[in-house]
């Protein structure tokens, strides 16, 4: 196996937005699968276990580190949502023109960040914090 030639590998390509959005889709999806589902299971399990267990959940996820994880998960969700929408369009055979592909490769993660900010702004406004 070691002696066989390799096809041109990752590092020979110049990075473009379509490559970034592709790897972001995988990273955000796997991040949510590993961290997000653990938090979801803990959240639901703590609620079912009673006020004391939920208090522990709130104390840890409400700490600066916990909030950092929650904001990160929400960013991963909105980014994965937008790159996933891009995949739905590509799946029907549309959006492969170079300029259109490039435009949505940039727009998807940017809209993901905008939605993340809008979500937390809405949460804070509803809570009366701002």
């Amino acid at each position, binding site marked *: 196996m070691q002696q066989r030639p390799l096809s041109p590998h990752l590092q020979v390509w110049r990075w473009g937005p379509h490559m970034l959005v592709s790897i972001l889709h995988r990273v955000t999806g*796997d991040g949510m699968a590993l961290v997000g589902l653990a938090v979801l299971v803990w959240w639901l399990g703590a609620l079912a276990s*009673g006020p004391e267990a939920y208090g522990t959940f709130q104390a840890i996820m409400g700490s600066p580190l916990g909030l950092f994880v929650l904001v990160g998960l929400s960013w991963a969700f909105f980014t994965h949502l937008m790159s996933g929408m891009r995949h739905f369009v590509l799946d029907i055979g549309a959006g492969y023109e170079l300029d259109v592909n490039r435009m949505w490769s940039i727009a998807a993660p940017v809209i993901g960040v905008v939605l993340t900010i809008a979500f937390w702004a809405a949460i804070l406004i509803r*809570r009366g914090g701002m």
Partner: protein
Amino acid sequence: MGSGTSIGRVRGLGSAHHGAHHWLAARFTAAGNVVLMAWLVVSFVMLGDFGYANLVKWLAQPIPATAMILLVISLFWHARLGLQVVIEDYIHDAGSKFALIAALNLATIGGGAFAIFSVASLALGGQA
């Protein structure tokens, strides 16, 4: 079916037509995730108060409990499909691949079952 070339032995036996199943299941669960996560995001914004009493009161109602259980199923299924592809892409040793996918199945089914049971116990009023 003769004893000729390898293509000759399989030609005409037909396709199982299951080749696209994994890919399609990822899309179907993705569509489920879009609908159900939209519900969760709107619910979080509407809730405002994330204290124990308010959340239990909310999640014990029929529609939130049903939506949360469906969300857990859709998310865990989608995550299982996605992580399987990552394992298949990066783990090339057949034994390790088998073991990781077996562990993935146990983790997703176990985690999903626990989450569904938690919602059901709240909805049916059987707190521990």
